[in-house]
């Protein structure tokens, strides 16, 4: 096991897949000559050339559609959208073309493309560069949504996404590209469906994904050391489909749930997980599930306001304490 950064895991997956299959290409703004905003395609332009590492014009809807069209004839494009905020401009093509084409063609045509995009609140990027949009993507039939919380997942999920015959949206986080973690030395394919119990516990389940997994892990430490509460942390790396069986299994063990997400609450990951808990294992619950989420505001620029808008591990701890009547 070598330690590498999140962006290095992504870069390694690109490189291995492009090296193996000449039909794997990547495209996006500034990914070639400039090396990529978050370095996920660093040096690949020099290695594979401009036909396979395509610096696109700033035309998100256009180049996303172009990548999808290429996937209709056997190309496996990895389409990077620099910021998930810009993905709004590409959603028509992702939803109406990529996600639906297999169904509306009666299974004749598939769009085996990967959409990678970075989102989340970084450092005072303001309302139009700080959004999370996973909740928009996870309700679309025909689209897979995964979101890596560590370098191993970043590497392994991208590898599996490239090999998948379905369109896969990978939601990354702008603050996580330099995160370090162990990645297997040998080739590794992370499953595109399911969830992972990152930390085992008995009293409450903390559901997280992407960056909120780390708030949950930190909260679980504090809860154990300071309050004697044993928290289980479940990493929902697949947001579509959500792992109903995994959610049920953990709730059947701990009987309490806190869902942590950086996104705003309405129509979100938290509400969906609570719905699944209701449907799958309502009578296992000892208390009403709680959501930890952002305020429903366009992300403010001012740093204090920005921090007040998004949750962190303390909010997870407080939510658990309330659940146990300790706050």
């Amino acid at each position, binding site marked *: 096991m070598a330690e590498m950064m999140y962006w290095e895991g992504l870069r390694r997956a690109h490189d291995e897949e492009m090296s193996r299959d000449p039909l794997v290409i990547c495209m996006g703004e500034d990914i070639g000559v400039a090396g990529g905003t978050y370095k996920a395609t660093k040096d690949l332009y020099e290695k594979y050339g401009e036909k396979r590492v395509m610096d696109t014009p700033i035309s998100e809807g256009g180049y996303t559609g172009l990548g999808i069209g290429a996937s209709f*004839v056997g190309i496996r494009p990895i389409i990077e959208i620099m910021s998930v905020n810009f993905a709004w401009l590409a959603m028509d093509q992702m939803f109406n*073309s990529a996600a639906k084409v297999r169904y*509306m063609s009666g299974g004749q045509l598939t769009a085996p493309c990967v959409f990678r995009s970075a989102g989340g609140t970084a450092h005072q990027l303001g309302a139009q560069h700080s959004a999370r949009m996973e909740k928009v993507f996870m309700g679309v039939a025909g689209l897979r949504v995964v979101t890596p919380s560590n370098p191993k997942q970043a590497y392994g999920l991208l590898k599996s996404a490239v090999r998948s015959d379905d369109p896969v949206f990978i939601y990354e986080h702008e603050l996580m590209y330099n995160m370090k973690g162990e990645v297997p030395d040998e080739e590794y394919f992370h499953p595109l469906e399911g969830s992972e119990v990152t930390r085992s516990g008995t009293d409450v389940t903390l559901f997280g994904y992407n960056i909120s997994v780390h708030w949950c892990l930190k909260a679980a430490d504090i809860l154990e050391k300071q309050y004697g509460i044993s928290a289980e942390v479940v990493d929902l790396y697949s947001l579509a489909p959500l792992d109903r069986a995994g959610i049920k299994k953990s709730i059947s063990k701990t009987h309490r749930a806190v869902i942590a997400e950086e996104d705003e609450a309405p129509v979100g990951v938290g509400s969906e997980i609570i719905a699944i808990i209701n449907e799958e294992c309502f009578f296992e619950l000892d208390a009403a599930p709680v959501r930890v989420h952002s305020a429903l505001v366009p992300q403010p620029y001012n740093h204090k306001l920005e921090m007040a808008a998004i949750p962190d591990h303390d909010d997870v701890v407080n939510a658990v304490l309330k659940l146990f009547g300790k706050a």
Partner: protein
Amino acid sequence: MTLDDKKRVLREMVLHRRFEERCYQAYIERKIGGFLHLYPGQEACCNGVMEAARPGHDYVITGYRDHVHAMKCGTDPKAVMAELYGKETGCSKGRGGSMHIFDVAHRFMGGYALVGGPFPLAAGIAKGIQLKGGDEIAICFLGDAANNQGVFHETLNMAKVWNLPVLFVCENNQYGIGTAIHRSTAVLDQYKRACGYNIEAAQCDGQDIDTVYEYAKTAVDYVRSGKGPYFLELMTYRYRGHSMSDSRGYRSRDEEEEWKKRDPINILRDRLIAAGELSMDEFTQIEKTTDDYIENEVIKFAEESPEPNVADLEKYVLA
């Protein structure tokens, strides 16, 4: 096109006309649901271009007025009609409907119902051809109104930057749904808009198939030779409304009659008669044979085919 080709194409155009008119009837009878966009009046566009291209070899993609384009690529009319009837034997297994005819085996890459949506998909198919090194081209048939979408501009720019083997065919039928082009569009000559992206472009009559063929031959040869994208504008007219719910209150019957004087089937028919290659009786016989075929085989097949199994509702969502 040889005389034999022209006679064959005349029969095809009659089939395309009568097929669409039969769809109209089936829609009134509620055999066909949803939205239905018919092609009569524009037959010389698809036929002329595809005679210059290689149907079944070149990739074709279009919007929702797509039945004829699929058949011209080689799709069995029975499979198209069965699709309109929502049957399992339809070319999209009853999941697509009129606006989503697909036949990948014949390289008909589908009809899409977001206006302008196929532009970047066509360029992407061309990118795939370029990477794989084939001699196919991608042909994108869309209407004039699609050129007011953002992806038109984004796609033409990328197609030129990357020199992609894609032919954009603009069937300018003068209306975007129910809005006349002069009321919605600043530049009436659509081919001029391609010049903004330094793309070779031309405009010609879309009612006379010989003219369409000549212009399309130049365009197809240009794209296939590796010179990059081409934009061909064909001036045409749809006789029926945008879809079945359109009673054409936005235009005059006089205007419609003017265009019908230059009917694409009549132009070709009369030219063959003048050349001594066809008689009016033979033409009438072609129409009758076509109607019999549509009724006895196409409609019969669609009527008698099974519907999809409800247990298969979620089949084809994911691979």
